[in-house]
């Protein structure tokens, strides 16, 4: 038995973390956040070269046929560095859509491109996870009209995969006639969230209309696990930055980290955060190996990590005092990533309700 990373996964983690940490000093995060597109091309290219986009793609399509667990290891590393890359959409959600419901030709074409890093996807699932305001899509034949909000990584993507209702998936070229996309001004500037307006835009169905409910459900599970892993990585960094700051910062002739008020905050952070690691690992493992448990574990991994992540982000900011509130420290990039992830694909209340439903607790 081994509850944790295999030797190979340990190497993968070291490689991805090492690369991302080198590429994302605070100054550069600040720089690429300024344009708010959620894409830093060199980092994305580096991840492609490390094989990161193909981890859940079968070998016949150029991938490495690893699994969601490996993707989760990568997502955690992305969260640690708030790297602005369309990973979850392109390397996790799009392949699941295509593998679950795509035709042979679609799989052949797009999965190879994803493995090779030749395409970026944006993914919009809010029709299945919660519709806001006047959003809504309508499919007539192969013409798509309406509005999709919070299309993940949608701003710079080449292709968009959108849920229409909770049982139909379509793919639309981001430059198609009749398609307009606008940046949503979310506080997290490291991820490009888009509003997509469609007026009779040509699209391609992924699977027959009404046949993709199960695939969409798998995308939501994987997305929740991946977002939880990102938030976990971000929260762990915030915790240790707060600890380090508390050891450096002196007041009353002693490091503030020697005051129990600060020590206890740190102890609470790590006590609540550490179990999230095991919960996320297990959820990813369930996704790969125990499909009957995957949805429930994904809900709990997301809800619990986001509650804890929020608490950690707040406590870590507090420990930095006034500096935590400034842009100088840059902590807010991690805080904002956690805040955005909390809401995507269902906030804690929604995912807990989904967990209850899965157990037959909702009449």
């Amino acid at each position, binding site marked *: 038995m081994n509850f944790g990373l295999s030797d190979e996964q340990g190497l993968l983690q070291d490689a991805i973390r090492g690369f991302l940490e080198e590429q994302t000093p605070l100054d550069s995060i600040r720089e690429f956040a300024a344009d708010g597109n959620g894409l830093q091309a060199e980092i994305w290219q580096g991840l492609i070269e490390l094989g990161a986009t193909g981890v859940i793609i079968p070998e016949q399509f150029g991938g490495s046929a690893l699994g969601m667990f490996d993707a989760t290891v990568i997502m955690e590393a992305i969260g640690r560095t708030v790297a602005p890359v369309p990973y979850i959409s392109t390397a996790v959600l799009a392949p699941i859509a295509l593998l679950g419901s795509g035709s042979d030709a679609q799989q052949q074409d797009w999965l190879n491109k994803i493995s090779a890093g030749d395409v970026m996807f944006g993914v919009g699932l809010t029709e299945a996870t919660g519709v806001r305001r006047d959003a809504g899509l309508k499919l007539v034949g192969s013409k798509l009209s309406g509005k999709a909000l919070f299309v993940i990584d949608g701003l710079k993507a080449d292709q968009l995969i959108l849920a229409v209702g909770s049982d139909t998936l379509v793919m639309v070229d981001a430059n198609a006639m009749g398609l307009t996309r606008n940046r949503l001004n979310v506080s997290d500037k490291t991820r490009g969230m888009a509003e997509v307006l469609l007026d009779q835009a040509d699209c391609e169905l992924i699977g027959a209309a009404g046949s993709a409910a199960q695939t969409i459900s798998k995308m939501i599970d994987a997305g929740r696990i991946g977002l939880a892993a990102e938030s976990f990585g971000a929260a762990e960094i915030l915790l240790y930055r707060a600890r380090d700051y*508390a050891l450096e910062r002196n007041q009353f002739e002693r490091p503030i980290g020697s005051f129990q008020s600060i*020590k206890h905050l740190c102890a609470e952070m*790590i006590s609540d955060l550490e*179990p999230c690691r*095991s919960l996320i690992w297990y959820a990813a493992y369930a996704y790969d190996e125990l499909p009957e448990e995957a949805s429930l574990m994904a809900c709990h991994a997301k809800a*619990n990590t986001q509650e804890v992540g929020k608490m950690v982000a707040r406590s870590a900011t507090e420990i930095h005092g006034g500096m935590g509130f400034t842009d100088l420290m840059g902590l807010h990039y991690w805080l904002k990533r956690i805040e955005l992830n909390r809401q995507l694909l269902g906030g804690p209340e929604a995912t807990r309700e989904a967990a*209850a439903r899965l157990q037959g607790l909702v009449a």
Partner: protein
Amino acid sequence: MDLKFSEEHEGFRKQVQAFLKEHKATAPTMKAVNGTSAAPTPEVKRWQKILIENGYTARTIPKEYGGYGGEADLIKGLIIQEEFIAADVSTGLTGQGISMLVPTLLELGTEEQKQKWVGPTIRGEVVWCQGYSEPGAGSDLASLKTKAVVEGDQFVINGQKIWTSSAHFSDMCFILVRTEPDAPKHHGISYLLMPMTTPGIEVRPLVTITGDAMFNEMFLTDVKIGVDQIVDQRGKGWMVANATLKHERGMIGNPAQTEANLNALMKLMKAETCDGIRAVDMPVYRDRLMRLQGRLLGLKLHSLRLLSDDLNGKAPDHGGLIVKYSSAYLNHEVYSLGIDVMGELGTLYNGDAYQSELDWQKMYLGSFAGIIGGGTAQIQKNVISERGLGMPREPRVTLDNKGWAMM
């Protein structure tokens, strides 16, 4: 990640399940053994004997000392826990003698001490209490003042202990006393084995918020025991006690038990109604239940991670430090929700006719012991931040005649 158990372990699970099926009808429940504060009944002792013979308790204690003599196997231990809790069958006695003294004697006792005490203790024939805390020595245990002086071939003990659970029916006490008053505080303590029938011991029950006398105060006046009734050397008692505390910290906080409580809570919420609406159908309560389930899953899987690390020879990290702290609050909140879903009915306890099957109020009140006992949650947080996160100790302060001053 590989969570598949080997064929040997899957076979072992089947063996445990078959055993439980065979004995379920006559076996005492978890609560019947661990939920009482009284000496083990003949019935419980009979069950304990069966468990030892089959290797379901005292599993790794060598045969020559009365145990089963099995090899240490963490996964088998886990399987036993899981299956017994699922079947609501008692895994046997767990008093402080068994969970703390026995491992300590096996580690540090003389051959004679092991021969004399281990067997009778695990069989439930000898019941122990722990004489550690004092009114003035709680979180700062090493400042204890109960003293023992040597007169001839005897220790003469004087002082006062508190929180000695089960002292009112114990046969023996493992007790910390100050034998070297001039040594630094951690080096002046000895660990003694004291028969509770010795003249000079007065035990007064300490009624707790549960209404029961789970604990006692113990007054010691010229209590005389042989100088050979010591574990390890004079002045080494702190080291011996720490070997024991290590076992206690592991003991408090069992996610499998919390899981059983959460399952009971789910059952309660499907049955209990207000204005004819089931608790589980009220979204606010349902959300609280799901929050607790998420935290429980985290802690349960975290414990599995720790077990796996242990199994694979990984050095322990900060992970082990958080289990006791987190489980204590989680248990408290599970019981709290049990009470809240029952509303006014939740305040009933001790066998009121309107109570539900389980005594949620009493379990809730009892859960404070988990938060405070074995090192309060605040002490746990000091330990987690210092040992887990490498943060400094709070500087010591002293009171001089001008006010508080740093030392």
